[in-house]
């Protein structure tokens, strides 16, 4: 069981990498989305550039740029931190668009109802629109979280000691059948992804009708 235990021991790193990148993205995605929606060009243009750029360039290229490229400028991150930073910013870019879509799906009468009650623009967003937009965005967020979980395997390429990295090492040194070892690693990703999708589907059904579309 040696190689399999070793791969299993990489699971916390994979989970931590996913969770941290998702958390960064979920939080940073909000101001990024607000800037993207701003009527001020000076906010909107850079937000749009960040969103487009981080989605247009493959994640592995970003990881290389952050880990190898930035090292040249004297900023040498650990592989894990570089992966969190890279996947975190990419997540922010994607989730900003997911949030924006959620917000656009809400009937504009909700803004008007908030304003008519004398709520400020921000309070209307905070208490009326955001809770509903979040419900709309939830399935897309879950889809993204699953994609992100799988993308953390790219961190193997900059030496993060996660599931794929360990599986690949075990396969290379011939500690067992390569097919079995790699299939085991694949199974671990599936084991995390599938329940996430199920939970998201449940939540979506539960929240679906509390939204004005």
């Amino acid at each position, binding site marked *: 069981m040696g190689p399999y235990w070793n791969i299993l021991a990489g699971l916390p790193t994979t989970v931590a990498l996913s969770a941290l990148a998702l958390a960064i993205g979920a939080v940073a995605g909000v101001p990024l989305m607000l800037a993207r929606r701003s009527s001020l060009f000076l906010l909107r243009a850079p937000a749009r550039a960040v969103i487009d750029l981080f989605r247009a360039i493959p994640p592995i290229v970003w990881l290389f740029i952050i880990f190898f490229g930035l090292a040249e400028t004297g900023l040498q991150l650990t592989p894990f931190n570089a992966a969190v930073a890279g996947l975190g910013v990419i997540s922010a870019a994607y989730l900003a668009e997911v949030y924006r879509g959620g917000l656009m799906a809400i009937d504009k009468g*909700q803004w008007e*109802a908030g304003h*008519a*009650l*004398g*709520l*400020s623009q921000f309070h209307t967003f905070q*208490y009326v629109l955001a809770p509903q937009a979040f419900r709309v965005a939830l399935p897309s967020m879950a889809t993204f979280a699953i994609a992100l979980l799988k993308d953390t395997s790219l961190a193997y390429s900059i030496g993060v000691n996660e599931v794929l990295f360990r599986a690949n090492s075990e396969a290379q040194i011939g500690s067992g059948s390569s097919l079995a070892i790699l299939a085991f690693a694949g199974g671990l990703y599936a084991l995390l992804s599938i329940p996430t999708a199920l939970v998201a589907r449940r939540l979506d059904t539960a929240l679906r009708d509390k939204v004005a579309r």
Partner: protein
Amino acid sequence: MIPGRPRFGHERSRRAGVGSDSAETSPSARAQPIVRLTDITKQYGGHVVVDAVGLQVDQGNVLAIIGPSGAGKSTLLRCVNLLERPDSGRIEVDDHVVNAGEPTSGRRLAALRRSAGMVFQSFNLFPHLTVLENVSFAQRRVLERSGQEADERSRELLASVGLSDKADAYPQRCSGGQQQRAAIARALALEPAVMLFDEPTSALDPELGLEVLAVMRQLANDGMTMIVVTHEMSFAGSVADEVAVMADGKFIEQGDPKRVFENPSHPRTRQFLRAILER
């Protein structure tokens, strides 16, 4: 239609402490104007939707605005609480004044809107909140009442619109008529000086519409100042103190409802009323 219902209209006493408020000092407070619009113009891309319209509604009066679709009725109403910013003109609601074109802070805008309760054609209740929370929400966030205080007041208001048993339901579990009555309670919760109704029954079948009209009638009887954009002629005829007929962005006729309905002076009014009667 809802027996034993508590009455609205309490707390109509004008907020004390507002120095410039003549209602406290003047014995003729009944005739005090609550809403005054002067020369309101609104255009969209060169198309003039509201064309230099003025109106005044005194305290306790009900103005019904009728007229064909596209006449600018809703746009005009939405100018009263500045959901639409007019291109020119002056808006006075209660003791708030906004001149079009001059920069208006969010705070002044919010203060004016607080004085004008708005009821929308499509209800626009908050679907993620229960009926009770919908009514309590702005009391807590805008009037900064405690949760308990707000909920108590909300239950009174819900009782007054016949919705006590729906307090804990979510809006989508309510009929359209119930939703609209809840929306009226929500708007009343801020103790507005005037209530604005934008075709409140147009999205409802006739029966549910009657529930809502009964509540509005009660509200008018209790002395609420109201501006009602509507196609409900019998409501306008029996409840309104004044009817204004709007066409092509202007008031073409204005006056006592009986006079306007029975003896319209403008040919466009006659044409519009005939179209309604022939339905």
